[in-house]
């Protein structure tokens, strides 16, 4: 859902080199046409301004220039080569989203979400872990709030008065995502890397790696929350704290990511 008031932004690791968009993180180059170069040189300005400049330069009708620029920005964003910074107030975007969702309802689909790519500072292990955690903290908080809210509702429906368990489970679910991505990021020290948030997926992009380093990066993500879960469960068994044991469950679930069921496990095994 793009709007002419939105702005195109090239994230860290993406640059324009002549007639090519270069992704230094993934080590890829993408050829673009002269019209696209015109739009990319104006990165930072609104898509509406870029459309006006494109129309004036190539003699296009305003509506066609607008459609072309929005489609191009959409394609770049979809390929994780550019971020689209919202130009409208949050409530306007929410209303637009609801309107589009209602139109898509007969097709049983939801509006496609704009992807966001954040460069990671991998100069040291600590910086890499912190920048990885910060990249997903907003998403993790949202997940934690939703999970805690849904579970609290179920708890109440079940007639239980306890409120600590849903909060603990929600917090652990959100923290699991932070620890998972921070683990991947920490293993990527001194490797160009970025985190991409697309729809429901969270991906770590990095330079192509081989052998043991690739396995280490893949396993570090699931290993961090899973190890914490094992420690938490052991402490809970020692103290008899059922809430802590419950909180360990969402963290322990990340261990599944190290199996063939998930991309991390397949990468770790070279598949």
């Amino acid at each position, binding site marked *: 859902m793009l709007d002419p008031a939105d702005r195109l932004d090239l994230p860290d690791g993406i640059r324009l080199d002549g007639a090519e968009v270069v992704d230094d993180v993934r080590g890829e180059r993408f050829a673009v046409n002269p019209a696209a170069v015109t739009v990319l040189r104006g990165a930072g300005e609104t898509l509406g301004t870029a459309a006006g400049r494109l129309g004036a330069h190539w003699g296009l009708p305003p509506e066609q220039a607008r459609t072309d620029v929005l489609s191009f920005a959409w394609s770049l964003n979809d390929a994780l080569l550019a971020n689209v910074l919202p130009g409208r107030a949050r409530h306007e975007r929410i209303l637009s989203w609801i309107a589009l969702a209602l139109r898509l309802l007969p097709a049983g689909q939801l509006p496609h979400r704009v992807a966001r790519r954040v460069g990671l500072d991998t100069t040291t292990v600590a910086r890499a872990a912190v920048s990885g955690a910060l990249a997903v903290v907003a998403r993790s908080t949202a997940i934690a709030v939703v999970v805690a809210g849904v579970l609290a509702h179920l708890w109440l429906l079940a007639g239980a008065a306890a409120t600590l368990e849903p909060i603990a489970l929600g917090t652990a679910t959100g923290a699991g995502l932070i620890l998972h991505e921070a683990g991947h990021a920490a293993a990527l020290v001194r490797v160009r890397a970025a985190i991409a948030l697309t729809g429901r997926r969270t991906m770590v992009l990095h330079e192509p790696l081989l052998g043991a380093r690739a396995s280490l990066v893949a396993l570090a993500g699931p290993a961090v929350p899973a190890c914490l879960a094992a420690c938490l469960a052991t402490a809970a068994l020692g103290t*008899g704290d059922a809430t802590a*044991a419950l909180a360990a469950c969402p963290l*322990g679930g990340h261990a599944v990511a190290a199996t063939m069921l998930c991309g991390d*496990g397949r990468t*770790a095994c070279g598949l």
Partner: protein
Amino acid sequence: MWALRPFVLGGAATAAVAYVFAAAAGLVAAAAGVELTVALGPVVLVAVELDGPTTATTIGAGLVVVGLVGAVANVIAAAMLRRRRDRGRIA
């Protein structure tokens, strides 16, 4: 030796998940004052025994069995993925 890594990873991951969930199930049952035994035949995974005011939660050898099952399942999945990948290369 390609199977070693999926075997170890599958076993460790399955055992970790089983351990955490068994601990949670055991402690929740203990908190609720309910006796609980989860066993794979004669091999106990988790047992909660109530003895008056005291409660004993035990994680048993079933954890090893679950880990082995997970390890073998992961190796089978890896073999299937390898076969599919090799077929793709030939095609």
